[in-house]
């Protein structure tokens, strides 16, 4: 019996594991080995340069800046997205009051659920075009145009949202949170719906308000889902390439003057514009390590006893 089961299960695993190795593990291994070379990206000629690329990275001001921006995104995007979507999910599912002791969402919750999910339907390319129009720096921009129409904007000196070093990263964070909140609201909603209603009813009977219900009942029971969401969002913040590269200035984005630079944008500029592909691979390796560390740390730190119900 055992002898037959082994090849049977292995048979199922050959294809997925093979694909995974070919499309994920193999490129990683290649990137790691290129990171020790001076590869230009344009041919098969390169020399082994040892750890030089990594030493250069440590002294590269732009790279350090990019790391700091990634760190900022890493803190802000998951925190804001999760808080916002938790709030929405709670209001849409159990935030309502009224009815004969029933637990339900606020009025019109079905409508909100659809509206909030809209951004998720749009691809990032469309998002970028949309927000390009929103943030446009002259009077044709949606924000500037609206501000000027109500007499708040300065016509001769409009806010150049994406060309302002103090604003550009916040503009990006806003788009990421706006685009992500809907999806995580649905994720949290699904999780909330699997919490038995009698727990809520019991809490209501004991006189718990919305606030207490949320922190004493909902949050602890959702912990695992939030943990997963955090890891996803953290990985998203480590990348953020498509959005930043389409919205901001410089080749592959990151402008003005590196003020929205993240590792991925600087990596691409080195890989393609500067023909420093070996150096870019070293950045890729650093990015991989950081993403791994962040995921592991998040999962470890947030580990709690599982509550069964």
């Amino acid at each position: 019996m055992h002898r037959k089961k082994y090849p049977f299960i292995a048979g199922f695993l050959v294809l997925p594991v093979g694909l995974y190795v070919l499309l994920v593990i193999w490129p990683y291994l290649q990137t790691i080995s290129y990171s020790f070379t001076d590869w230009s990206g344009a041919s098969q000629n390169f020399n082994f340069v040892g750890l030089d690329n990594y030493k250069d990275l440590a002294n590269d001001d732009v790279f350090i800046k990019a790391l700091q921006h990634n760190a900022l995104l890493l803190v802000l995007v998951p925190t804001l997205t999760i808080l916002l979507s938790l709030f929405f999910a709670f209001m849409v599912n159990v935030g309502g009051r009224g009815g004969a002791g029933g637990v339900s969402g606020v009025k019109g919750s079905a409508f909100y659920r659809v509206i909030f999910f809209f951004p998720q339907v749009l691809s990032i390319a469309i998002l970028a075009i949309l927000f390009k129009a929103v943030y446009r720096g002259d009077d044709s921009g949606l924000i500037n145009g609206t501000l000027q129409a109500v007499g708040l904007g300065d016509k001769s000196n409009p806010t150049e949202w994406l060309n302002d070093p103090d604003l550009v990263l916040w503009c990006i964070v806003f788009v990421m949170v706006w685009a992500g909140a809907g999806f995580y609201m649905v994720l949290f909603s699904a999780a909330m719906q699997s919490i038995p209603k009698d727990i809520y009813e019991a809490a209501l009977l004991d006189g718990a308000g919305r606030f207490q219900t949320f922190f004493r009942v909902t949050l602890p029971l959702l912990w695992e889902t939030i943990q997963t969401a955090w890891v996803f969002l953290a990985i998203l913040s480590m990348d953020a390439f498509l959005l930043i590269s389409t919205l901001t200035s410089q080749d592959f984005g990151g402008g003005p003057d590196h003020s929205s630079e993240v590792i991925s944008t600087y990596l691409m500029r080195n890989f393609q514009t500067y023909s420093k592909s070996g150096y870019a691979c070293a950045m890729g390796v650093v990015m991989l390590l950081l993403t791994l560390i962040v995921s592991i740390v998040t999962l470890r730190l947030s580990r709690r006893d599982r509550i069964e119900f």
Partner: protein
Amino acid sequence: MGSTPGTSGRPETSGVGRRDLIKRAAALGIISVPTMGFLSACASGGGGDNDKAKTVKKTKNNPFGVAKDNDLDVFIFKGGYGDAYAKAWEASFEKKYGGSVAHSGEQDVTGKLQPRFNKGNPPDVVDDSGSKKMKLDTLHKEGHLTDLTQLLDAPSIDDPSKKIRDIMLPGTIEQGTFGGKFHALFYVYATWGLWYSNKLFKKHGWKVPKTWDEMLDIMKDAKSKGIGGLAHQGKYPYYMNIVIMDLIAKTGGMDAVKAIDNLDKKAFVGNPAAERAIEAVYEIVEKGLLMPGTNSLEHTEAQTKWNEYKAVFIPSGSWLENEQAKQTPDDFEMTFLPLPLLPDSKMKLHALRTGADEPFIVPSKAKNVAGGLEFLRRMLSKEGATAFAKEASSLSVIGPEYVDKSVQLRPGIKTALAAVDACPVDERFNFRYSEWYGELDVAIQNATGELMAKRITPKKWLERCQAAVDKEAEKNPDTKRK
């Protein structure tokens, strides 16, 4: 959510558990992968002699020995000039030599071609241009460029008694020479400077400015009438650098141009021409003469607003009119203007930046190198130049006499060509640093972006540019221009 499948009561099977199996399978994968030979596959693998196209005996009419019915693969940068002209060339090539010509018109040149160069499977002809072009310098170092000297020595199609090298405008060969050999055919004869609408000028009674101060006066007058003085394509400081660099060149003469290209210790800081020029440019910013919001606009956005008479001047090259063809009102009267002068300038008012633009290359690893060379030769003919003038409304490096008289160029490009004609050949200039030193170019562009947004002073701009020059000089001890 919340239920735990592991404890649901399903009996654990003995023997090889699920997890062990996964572990073993994964371990197997990890061991087997490195043995496949590191770095020999995928990203930089492949190459070798793929089946090259056949050639026939070389003759005077067929100097590269192109055989009939070979396929040709042409890759065109689809930017300001579009790619309709290339389709005309390709149709003509197909007609003459049979086979099929594959056409790609793209903007992201590096993204599409880097993997193909790596694999040793590049197209036969590449128009390597745009902000995502592959650096010619790198391609040359890697041995990817066919020596085009044989093209220079080939007979011209229209007059076989002349060689190709004799019909090209001056500077074209120098521009395409890397390491002493001619490797890239810069096909378009371009010029750079400021542009304005003559209709707007007539309406407000402005005269064409000869000095920087006259230009500032027009901008101030425009501002009082609610029009921006200068629009620029802020998201790409490349365009504003046309104004800054040309003003430096005209103020300081060829010495100032060479100082920057040669990575001189006094290219910016300690160079009076650079100092005066950047102060003059900053006056536009300081006096609020920029079109509001222009610092953050895409090139097409800024140019379209300029077409809507929201600004007087805009910097660009000779492709501007073609790029804006759809947005330009019929009575706009687009007009070219070489940069006005600061007092005591070394160059004259008519001096301007000209150069061959849009490099066409034949990759050395291409399948059909002979076909690629012949394609370039046919571009440098009356038929080729006429098709380009017709579809892109611009001139090629073999000049206007090769364009059929029936082709009417657009009015704006005619003013640019008149300005070029008015400038003696030895007073035309061009910068090379942006092509030679990619990182220096980016550093200067970033500094310009900051200056235009009033976040740094002219003094700081000079310091930043000088620091970038010094950094580049450290990496390249032997500078290229002697």
